[in-house]
């Protein structure tokens, strides 16, 4: 399992909520599925991240009842969160492209 930087984790969480609101467990599942099990989110990192994002105003939460009639806390993106996601994505693209370029340079 890859160790994710805090900023990257936050970006992934925001992305996972882009489609629709979801609870904490669902977020980890979604990211796992989408990454074909490469990215496995540790609960110990997830919940602090969720709190952080809530504090920054990028996500909000509310308690709902699931299909199984269980009580769970659902998180959703805010307008600010959407903007932040777009910004982070753009930064990430720039960064990874640059890293890529550097790595492709052959030592000759």
């Amino acid at each position, binding site marked *: 399992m890859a160790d994710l930087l805090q900023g990257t984790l936050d970006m992934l969480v925001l992305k996972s909520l882009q489609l629709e609101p979801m*609870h*904490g*467990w669902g977020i980890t599942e979604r990211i796992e599925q989408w990454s074909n099990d490469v990215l496995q989110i*540790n*609960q*110990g990192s997830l*919940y*602090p991240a969720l*709190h*952080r994002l809530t*504090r920054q*105003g990028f996500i*909000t939460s*509310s*308690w709902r009842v699931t299909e199984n009639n*269980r*009580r*769970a*806390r659902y998180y*959703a*993106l*805010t*307008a*600010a969160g959407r903007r932040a996601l777009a910004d982070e994505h753009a930064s990430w693209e720039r960064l990874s492209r640059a890293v890529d370029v550097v790595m492709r340079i052959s030592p000759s």
Partner: protein
Amino acid sequence: MFLTNLLARIRGAAGLVGGFAGERAHEQDLDDELQFHLEKAKDRNVRRGMTVEQANRAALVQFGGKAQWTEAARDERRSRIIDDFTRDLRYGAATLRRNPGFAVSAILTIALGIAATVTVFSFINSIYLRPVAVPEGQRLVRVYGGSRPDGEQELGFPAFRELRRSARSFDMVAAHYSTAPLYVTARGESAEARGAVVSGDYFRMLGIQPALGRFFTLAEDSVPDRDAVAIIGYGLWQRRFGSEARVIGETVTINGRAFSVIGVAPEHFDGIVSGFPNELWIPTMMLRTGYRWCDAFRAACPITSITARLAPGASLGQARAEVSALTPRLAALTDPDDSIRVIATNPAVGIRVWEQRQFAQLSTLLSAIALILMSVACANLSGLLLARGLSRQREIALRTSLGAGRWRIVRQLLTESAIIACAGGVIGVVLSLWTSRALVGFFASDSEGYLHPYDVSLDARVVLFAVITALGAVMLFGLFPALRISRVDVAEALKVGTGGSASRSRARMALVAGQVALALSLLVGAGLLTRSFGALMSTQQFDPRGVAQLRLRPMLMGYDHERAVPYLHRALESIRATPGVVSASPVNGSLVRQATGRVTVALPDDVPVAKENATRIEYFDIGPGYFATLRVPLIAGREFSEHDDPSTPLVAMVNQSLAKRLWPNGSVIDQPLLLNGKQFRVVGVVKDHRVHTMSEASPAMAYVAFWQNATVPQIDARIAIRVSGDPLRALPALQRAAAVADPGVPVTELLAMESQMRATYTELRLGGAVLIVGASLALFLSAIGLYGVVSFLVTQRAREIGIRLAVGARPSDVLAMLVRQGFHPVWIGGAIGVAASIIAAPLLSRWLFGVGPIDRVTIAAALGTVGLVAMFASYLPARRASRTDPATVFRCD
């Protein structure tokens, strides 16, 4: 999403407000959430083929230590609140740093307001609230006779004995006479010490330890006049005994009797009566040495006070009930004439109860002034903040558009205000240390020359009050602008160009008007008191300059009348022989009040009336040449002379008011007069010359001859001495001259009469000074406020001014227009201020003399001053505007 956003914002706000209160709810939520997660993980494991136990174990392992990351999650949430607060603080501090001019003036303004309020509160604390500064101070209560028509009084020694014997709710009861004039001769020097006569367990009750030696034992305070032991104060020990340990066992003479020093009191202890510091203590069994005017062990000579300590577990209510039950017995022991109905039991706080009453009006006045100053300061600050709000419009609009809720912005602005209030509060408290002392300095010496150092140092109560005041100030001056500023129309504010709503400048105008009104009322008050004092001083028909006084007290040395008369003659002779002395005259009574007491007055042919209904006037017992010494003009007849002695018929003098009252139409000289039933012959009439305020009674007065002992036998005397030079410098020579007649007799109250007279009108001077300071402050702050308003006007109408100038208007016209506009709030404020002064003036009537509470001259002068200051404050920015180059106005847009 809008709904969730809104809900989120509300929850965010609620989260902050109920932050820590909702902690438990949050905990529960977190637990539920994590439990759900765990369940889902277990379910998945089961789906993947594990057994139930394996699934559980795997899920838990995957989770890691639940405790760890619940802690991490909890920390995240907690840190949010602190983070927000720290961020607000740092942002606020940065904003203030960027505007140092604003920050400094804001902080100073609130510091002045807080200094004023805290100073007055320290004073009130000292007078009414402060317990005695000893370890057992909180448990001490005073027991005294209350609600007599003449006021409260002490219960005396026999009552003390009875209370000590019977009371259960007190574990210790002590008696003390804390204003004992003890004349001490030690190591060759003699001087008066402010002493106290206290019962044996007084020091133990207070819970203090001696600095050296020991305190009294109960055995030493059991037999009258037997154990002449004394405890000296720390200051006295340093001053007159050189802080030497050998003082223990040393012999000193107190009021003519030899005493042995057995201990030194701890360093900062000076008795338990605030305002009357003690430096010497002797036991109650030596009361007859400490007090000579009557036998203090008997009833009907009640001079000792009772202070008791509540027993552990006993409440004040219980003590009160017990004392109530004991009242008949105690009252009978205090005053056989049976005039005490109620005995009061109250916590020993503040100064003595009957003195508190004298300060009531002054305290009210001071509180009103402090409140006014605080209001002015807060109004000023509100104005300043509103003005700055204009320049921060864009910043705030930006933040709002980025999602910051209005509540967050208000919180941010309030934090800034809180920083200003805290900084100002600290400075204000430091300032108040100095101003409190200045305030108390007015009471530095009373008319007998004794110091009254009221304790205005900081204690827990004062600090708490300062904190509450600062917080209250934040709400007062910060809330309104914060609400106003945060309500911003985003589109409007982000547009380039001059912004600012009309209503905001209206608010500032209103503030300036309010400040002007307050400043005006203070000015009128100050003017009234100043004129009163001037009028008072000029009604004096005698000349106190160049007059010194001293007091001879042979009674303290046990002299009786026969021994005293030749002694006084000898003393007077040697005083008159001193170089520089023009004349000297003895009196019996107070030289400052110019009276000895009251007598009934009647004419011989008057119908006799019952004693209660008889007319009473004040009288003064004076020696030969008194009026000459004081330079009071005689209207008819002669002064008393050396021939008026006990062997000649009784003679009297009257002043003009009494003469007009008793003999309106005829001659006054040689008329008979009855004073206290004795017949006198009038030999002279003097001009009315006593100083009195409007609230004091009519000035009719009679005078009797000192050497004739017409009223009371003469033993002690005060001597009025006219010297040719500076009275203060003559005092040492006069003291030496008086001591020639008998070096053992105390010579005290060496004062210059002029400063004594001033001390009598302490309150008046104090009130005047405080009002002047307050008025100046208020005026200064109003001027700043007005300056700001006009500057704002100038900025707001920069374009219009440019246009006017460009099309040929004269700069002076523009100037006039701006000043006129700036004066709108001044007119309104002035009108309100005048109305307020008229309504509130009766508050001052107690101190007014020669002026009525509604005085046209004073009001006109105050208006003039305010107008002048306002003119100056609005002229400066207006002048700047009128000189602008029209071109620059159009350039930056």
